[in-house]
């Protein structure tokens, strides 16, 4: 099998796994998230910086090592957005929009300034730019926005058809569309569609921070694609299949920093003059690369110093102050508003996975500094008491895993009972919708003349929002107020007093 075929098979397989990760059932999602996502560059990096986990460290180091040894194979094999672009490229070739590729000049100024800007803003506490351009997160958002609703629609349609055959299955709740986020996603989809179908892997070599960073490493990688200048007949076959547009066949030079190691050129060369081999015997320096050396060193220095700045003090600089006054509640396990906004890459995996769909993407709610990061969408839904899935699947550590026991006492917010709106207080009629659904017994009732008035004891509250969802008034009479730093709730076990399983059944009927 040709190496480019192997690449296609592997990358399509991994792409399918990504679809399953976002659209599959809970068990598959959490399994795939634990094995697949430590090997995604940005999630692994964020995870290591704030809350190191063994597999993420291994994953991140292996990505770096692989790049040092083999070049940017990550971009062609592991990156889901890379595969999506390859699909677009193949499509555009099929329909004849762009049959052949050709050498493109590098957009060095653009790509290095985007990378530097992203590193600087991320260091100062705003993940927005990184989140916008991180390939994994873009892919995650696209799957959540486009693929998941499609699969759910098919699933639910099949279920509604099965009813006619007396087979009854549970349908799945669908994700709600938010226009602003839909527009962002459509925008990126079109951007990537046009870029890839017209210019191949241009995104990876201009805007993608991961591509640029790995490109810096792949310049010095051990294995490289090289053209034997003395024997090359300049047939341009290799340049025509190069999606990255990095082969200057006229001069028989390959721009290593932009090569995504797709192996196309290797298979296209009629004389096998393009080879993929060790570059230990460093031959005479490429003329153009020396001119960029200053920039290279500069970028590495900037990256290095920026990494040093990854400490909470500095990272608060760009943090949006009004986020906490906005009453935004972050998912259980996210420790605090600051922790969440500074670690979330907005991949929306939690949005896809959340069974009650209480986690929904935000647009500007967290401010410019926290673009697209998810929030708890009260009172449209509520956080299921028996679920801790978001923490189990979050790849960046923005939502840290909690055991179900811990989750049940993690207070992400408190409730506020607004007596001036509450049906019971206003109309003196029984309602108790909030009392019924409260899983923690935060809300109890006081019986005054056979009317049961709800009262709140917030020490037990975990801020799940079930009460708010159940409340029949509009606007709601009971609302969740955020805890900018999550707290521990007290377990309410007093109510039941002693176990009264009386075994002696009264002898007579009371009528």
């Amino acid at each position: 099998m040709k190496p480019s075929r192997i690449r296609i098979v592997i990358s399509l397989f991994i792409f399918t796994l990504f679809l399953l990760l976002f659209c599959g059932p809970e068990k598959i999602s959490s399994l795939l998230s634990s094995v697949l996502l430590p090997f995604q560059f940005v999630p692994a990096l964020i995870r290591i910086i704030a809350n190191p986990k063994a597999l993420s460290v291994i994953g991140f180091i292996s990505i770096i090592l692989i790049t040092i040894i083999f070049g940017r194979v990550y971009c062609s094999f592991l990156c889901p957005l890379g595969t999506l672009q390859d699909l677009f490229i193949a499509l555009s070739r099929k329909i004849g929009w762009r049959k052949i590729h050709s050498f493109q000049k590098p957009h060095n100024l653009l790509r290095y300034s985007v990378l530097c800007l992203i590193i600087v803003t991320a260091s100062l506490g705003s993940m927005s730019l990184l989140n916008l351009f991180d390939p994994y997160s873009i892919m995650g958002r696209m799957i959540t926005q486009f693929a998941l609703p499609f699969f759910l629609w098919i699933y639910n349609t099949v279920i509604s058809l099965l009813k006619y055959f007396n087979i009854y299955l549970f349908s799945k709740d669908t994700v709600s569309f938010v226009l602003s986020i839909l527009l962002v996603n459509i925008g990126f989809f079109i951007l990537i569609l046009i870029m890839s179908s017209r210019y191949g892997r241009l995104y990876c070599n201009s805007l993608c921070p991961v591509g640029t960073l790995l490109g810096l490493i792949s310049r010095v990688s051990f294995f490289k694609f090289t053209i034997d200048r003395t024997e090359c007949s300049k047939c341009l076959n290799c340049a025509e299949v190069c999606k990255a547009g990095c082969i200057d066949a006229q001069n028989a030079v390959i721009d290593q920093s932009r090569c995504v190691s797709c192996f196309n050129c290797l298979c296209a060369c009629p004389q096998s003059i393009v080879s993929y081999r060790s570059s230990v015997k460093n031959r005479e320096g490429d003329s153009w690369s020396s001119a960029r050396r200053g920039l290279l060193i500069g970028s590495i220095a900037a990256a290095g110093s920026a990494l040093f700045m990854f400490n909470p003090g500095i990272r608060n600089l760009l943090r949006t102050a009004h986020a906490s006054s906005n009453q935004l509640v972050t998912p259980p396990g996210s420790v605090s508003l600051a922790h969440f906004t500074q670690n979330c890459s907005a991949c929306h995996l939690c949005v896809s996975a959340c069974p009650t769909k209480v986690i929904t993407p935000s647009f500007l709610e967290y401010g410019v500094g926290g673009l697209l990061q998810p929030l708890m969408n009260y009172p449209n839904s509520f956080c299921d008491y028996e679920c801790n899935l978001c923490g189990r699947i979050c790849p960046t550590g923005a939502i840290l895993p909690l055991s179900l026991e811990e989750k049940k006492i993690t207070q992400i917010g408190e409730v506020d009972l607004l007596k001036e709106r509450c049906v019971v207080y206003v109309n003196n009629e029984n309602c108790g919708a909030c009392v019924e659904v409260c899983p923690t017994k935060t809300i109890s009732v006081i019986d005054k003349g056979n009317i049961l008035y709800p009262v709140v004891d917030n020490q037990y509250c975990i801020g799940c929002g079930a009460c708010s969802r159940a409340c029949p008034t509009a606007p709601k009479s009971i609302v969740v107020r955020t805890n900018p730093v999550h707290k521990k709730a007290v377990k309410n076990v007093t109510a039941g007093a002693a176990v009264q399983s009386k075994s002696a059944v009264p002898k007579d009927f009371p009528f």
Partner: protein
Amino acid sequence: MTKMQKTDRREFLKKGLSLGLAAGGAVILGKTDFLQAKETEKAIPDLVAVKNGEPDAMFKKAIALMGGMEQFVRKGQTVVVKPNIGFPRKPEVGATTNPLLVKTIIESCYQAGAKKVYVFDNVVMPTSDNSRNCYKISGIEDAARAAGAIIIPVDDFSYQEVTIPGAKTLKTAEIHHLILDSDVFINVPVLKHHGSTHLSIAMKNLMGIVKNRIKYHFAGLEQCIADFCLYKKPDLNIVDAYRVLMSDGPRGPRDEQALNVELKKTLLMSRDIVAVDAAAARIFGKNPEDIGYIKMGHKQKTGNMNLNELKIVTYSM
């Protein structure tokens, strides 16, 4: 063709077929007594109360005292058995109907010749994930399936709007189509404490066959509960008072260790939904007069809460 039309045609065919079959069957088997049902009804007591047995044994005794399941379910009929599956709690908590009782009732329906038995409840937080949890954790899904019932996951599209004659507050309601389409409706609530209405029994259990239960809370919970019974009274109410949640209802306490349940080992059965609620309130230790919706139901002549006026058959096992 739209879905609506399809459904209509199906329903029409179904109804036509079942009517034909029922009539034909009745003639062939010579069982035309349902045409003179009045005669047998006199023998049925207003209320049957059984105690000191296991849920299945108590049910079998009670239904025998009622004159047998055949009084309620005829050959070839479709039946809805509506337990309380409102919360994702284990059977021990007493927040949901005893699964063994549900199973025994379904089996009894089939023995009486039922064609199909449906089981469903519109749970309290009706997301599909939560209803799945409720069905599973309550043990009712497995029990009902074992007995051969069809478990219906409720969705937003299964309801039909109806007007309620004589209602004070709840003038219209969207009701599950299976209740309208099935021949027999058996209400199987659990008796438990309730934080909004003091008690949840048979009348309250009917909130699980309407779509927008939150509307009740807003409009006046107890009046709505009473009003709905003006539209639909179950053919039979079977109250599970085997293991009674005495406080922290309707959901039960946060921790199962802190359960406040009493083993009352009682089962009540009646066609009168107000009477059965009144009797259950007494079992719980409350005065029916204090429960708003029972009083309202009595006032609206849905049933009789004055137990001393009723023909009650009791049995202790």
